[in-house]
């Protein structure tokens, strides 16, 4: 009777690859689900399946001003929750960091169920600072079979 493959000296050093891959997959899925939530500070149910938004990678810039409105009355700038009165001064400081005129744009990530009046409130707060463009963040329709987005 031959010895079990790889075994010797009483130590079992044969690696079962199958359970290892299972565990790795589970870990990977956990990360995939948790990481996007951590990065963007607060989850917002953005409008989905829109046909015509334009891509704008400046939204992910560190200097980008992104105000998230997950629910009525909640205003978030990055990971910090703000009251309505804090929006204007905070945005003003961030605007000071933006050099180019065409980058003076405030992005609003609002959830589909939020009332439009809330978005208008944010717009009114920001108007006086010389901002004349806002970006309403929305998700583009995912086409079935599309390849990874072009860089």
């Amino acid at each position, binding site marked *: 009777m*031959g*010895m079990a*493959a*790889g075994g*010797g*000296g009483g130590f079992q*050093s*044969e*690696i*079962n*690859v*199958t359970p290892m*891959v299972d565990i790795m*997959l589970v870990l*990977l899925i956990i990360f*995939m689900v948790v990481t*996007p939530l951590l990065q963007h500070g607060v989850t917002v149910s953005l*409008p989905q399946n*829109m*046909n*015509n*938004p*334009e*891509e*704008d*990678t400046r*939204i*992910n810039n560190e200097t980008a001003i992104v105000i998230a*409105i997950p629910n009525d009355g909640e205003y978030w700038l990055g990971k910090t929750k703000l009251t309505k009165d804090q929006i204007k001064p905070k945005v003003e400081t961030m605007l000071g960091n933006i050099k180019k005129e065409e980058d003076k*744009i405030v*992005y609003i990530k*609002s*959830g*589909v*169920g*939020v*009332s*439009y*009046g*809330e*978005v*208008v409130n944010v*717009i*009114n707060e*920001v*108007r006086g600072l*010389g901002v*004349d*463009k*806002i*970006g*309403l*963040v*929305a*998700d*583009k329709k*995912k086409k079935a079979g599309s*390849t*990874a*987005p072009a860089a």
Partner: protein
Amino acid sequence: MAMGGGKAEGGSKAVPYINVTPLIDVLLVLLIIFMVITPLKPSRFQADIPTQRDPNEDLSKLKPNPLTLVVSISTDLQLKLNADNIGSVNDTAPLSQKLLQLFQQRKEQHAYKPGMETRSDLPESERLEKTVFVKAPRSLKYGDVVKVIDAIKGAGANPVGLQVDDLPQ
């Protein structure tokens, strides 16, 4: 009896038999999951907002632009283009069509934005007057307003302006 393949020498080394086929299956599945779930490049609708209203400004001196287009949404989700009823938030096709028609007309008539008449260095689509304003009551859901903006952008409006003063509740 000879040992099965894969074992280099007797005794001390552990040589795992890696089945490559399931490994590739698993990797492919992962890849497909990533391609579908990974957040796309962020995208947004850019819209213009009016500057702070100057309380001293005399509005009666402003001349209305005959080419102005205002899409109003009412609280019961019906749409109006200037003064004409034209579909609803859930049926934006008539609005898109009408706008496409209008813009096509303007293209034929060379209806340019004020100041763009002589700028032949810019492409037609930037010179034509295609501004559309959106007016919606505050109580409307944001999702509905975005659907309308989506339809307007699809018809080629550029820029889209949001009216934020004097909104109904």
